[in-house]
């Protein structure tokens, strides 16, 4: 029986070697998600260690400048390690501890998930190995050193396109080699069941807080929630508790790279088609023979040819909308938020800011947008400088 379905999407398309490991994670998660002591321990970690709840900040200058809807920023960039990734990692690391695992492995694109995993490993005493594409170790050199500083071993992946998808391949391969003592901390709402569900649950703290915060500040729900989407973990976290609120528009921003009409993008919903890859049925950028396409984005964290199965389902049912944002638009938004609000967002999050800049002026002053600032942009400063033609080296 196929498990973990979201409409036609999801499932458990995993090699037999890993099936028992995945079933073990599934059983452990089923048990601990309803365990009050586990939940209390996780909340303690999220609050005392990661610095939750994160702020819902009213971006007054941006609102006034754009002249439309009131803009609130959900400040996941203020979490310990600088992004939303820590929410999921603390959950999975705690679960791995309960399961008696002693070693964590993970893929990373931009390095945010790798840093978060290395951090949790240091905190809880796990051995830690991170897999990262060579293209990404080059453009995110700072995060590579950060992971090493935290005691993790970083493996540079040189197969395939040398980006996030290849890092995922390599981490799956590593897991098949050593299953007994190892937990694979998947970083997004993708892969085989139970990962899309478990990661979503751990990330849904974002919308749980944001919903309560906006009700407290404004006495009403927002008109729209905007988040960037690669695999889709920060977006699903920002959307999840608003899904039953039918009047709240949910908008995911995909990486359009140099444009959806070029070959160089990672816009899965705009340009992808149905497939089965990385453990799940969902939409993927691929050719007519099912070969996964090389994708491109200035943002290493969005540079992924697929999207989580729950997003694919939210797209099918039209509950959420997905829009492509180009490199140029994202870089402009990166600079805009830095200058306007004094907040340097991750280049991933800048994709969401970019769409807020398009949408807000079309909306009334009595309307509200929440933008999820999934991470901070320190890691991107050198790459953005290079994009602008300045040769800065870290």
């Amino acid at each position, binding site marked *: *029986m*196929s*498990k973990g379905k979201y409409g036609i999407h999801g*499932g*458990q*398309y*995993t*090699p*037999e*070697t*890993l*099936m*028992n*490991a995945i079933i073990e994670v599934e059983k452990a998660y089923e048990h601990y998600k309803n365990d009050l002591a586990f939940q209390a321990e996780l909340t303690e970690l999220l609050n005392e260690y990661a610095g939750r709840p994160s702020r819902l900040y009213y971006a007054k200058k941006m609102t006034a400048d754009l002249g439309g809807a009131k803009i609130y920023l959900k400040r996941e960039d203020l979490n310990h390690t600088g992004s939303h990734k820590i929410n999921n990692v603390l959950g999975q690391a705690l679960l791995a501890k309960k399961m008696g695992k002693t070693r964590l492995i993970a893929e990373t694109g931009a390095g945010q998930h790798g840093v978060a995993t290395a951090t949790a490993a240091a905190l809880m005493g796990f051995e830690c190995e991170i897999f990262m594409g060579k293209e990404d170790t080059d453009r995110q050199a700072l995060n590579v050193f950060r992971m090493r500083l935290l005691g993790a071993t970083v493996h540079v992946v040189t*197969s*395939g396109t040398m980006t996030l*998808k*290849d890092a995922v*391949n390599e981490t*799956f*391969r590593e897991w*098949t*080699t*050593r*299953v007994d003592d190892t937990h694979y901390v998947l970083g997004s709402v993708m892969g085989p069941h139970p990962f899309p569900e478990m990661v979503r649950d751990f990330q849904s703290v974002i919308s749980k807080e944001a919903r309560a915060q906006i009700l407290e500040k404004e006495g009403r729900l927002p008109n729209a929630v905007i988040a960037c989407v690669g695999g889709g973990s920060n977006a699903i976290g920002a959307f999840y508790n608003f899904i039953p609120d039918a009047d709240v528009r949910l908008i995911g921003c995909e990486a359009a790279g140099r444009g959806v009409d070029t070959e160089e993008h990672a816009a899965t919903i705009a340009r992808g*088609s*149905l*497939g*089965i*890859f*990385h*453990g799940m*049925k969902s939409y*993927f950028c*691929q050719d*007519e*023979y*099912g*070969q*996964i396409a090389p994708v491109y984005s200035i943002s290493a964290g969005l540079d992924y040819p697929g999207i989580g199965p729950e997003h694919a389902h939210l797209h099918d049912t039209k509950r959420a909308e997905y829009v492509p944002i180009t490199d140029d638009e994202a870089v402009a938004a990166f600079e805009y938020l830095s200058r306007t609000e004094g907040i340097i967002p991750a280049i991933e999050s800048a994709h969401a800011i970019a769409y807020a800049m398009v949408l807000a002026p079309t909306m009334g002053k009595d309307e509200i947008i929440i933008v999820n600032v999934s991470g901070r942009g320190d890691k991107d400063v050198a790459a953005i400088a290079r994009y602008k033609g300045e040769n800065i080296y870290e």
Partner: protein
Amino acid sequence: MSNIIEATKIKANKISEIFSNQKAFIAFLTAGDPSLDKTEEFILAMDAAGADLIEIGIPFSDPIAEGPVIEAANERALRVGTTTDAIFDMVARVRTQTAIPLVFLTYMNPVFVYGVERFFAACQKNGINGIIIPDLPFEEKGEILSVAKAHEVDVITLIAPTSQDRIQMLAKEATGFIYLVSSLGVTGVRSEIKTDLAAIVSDIRAVTQTPVAVGFGIATPEQATQIAKLADGVIVGSAIVRLIAAHGSAATPILTDYVREMKAALV
């Protein structure tokens, strides 16, 4: 043209026949490495040298169950433009020349995106006996099983050292042969196989008569002799692909010698 092929097509032998009264030698290669013409030549040469079944890899951009040797072969094959359609044409040509059972090895996405019905209809038309899909576990077999059966293609069951309590569930429904994965990890040559294969084989035999072939990590005649003592067949992939990588278009006589030596080790 297709009518001529149709007219001269040889009926494929059944998979089960290769295990009767002998230990089977199963050879794997990646289609299109270095070219489909060469793949056709290599298949026929290995058949003539004593291989009992050929596994033909349909290259995939992201072969997550493969080690570096076969992964590189996938990349080479795709780089020269190998497509699923061209592979079916190559299989059709092979089927005019031999009755040896042919089994595809590929990943779920190339099959799904080609169209499950269209894919298995083409398998039947061109004489493919079975298929191995590493990322299609028991729980997801429903994706293809009834269509594959309708087109008389066996969906080969994989059993791993980590299958444990799943072994009997998996083995009960197995047809064609069972692919027993010798070791944890991905495909590739290993100096030593540490799994207690005898125990797994005995668990399998408790529930099914379907033959068991062991793969992953087998390269030498000594290893083949050892494995043949406890299983019905031996599968060799990376060692063959490595010879093709090293000798390219000139690999034919080297493959012939290698297969002959391996087959002899099974007697």
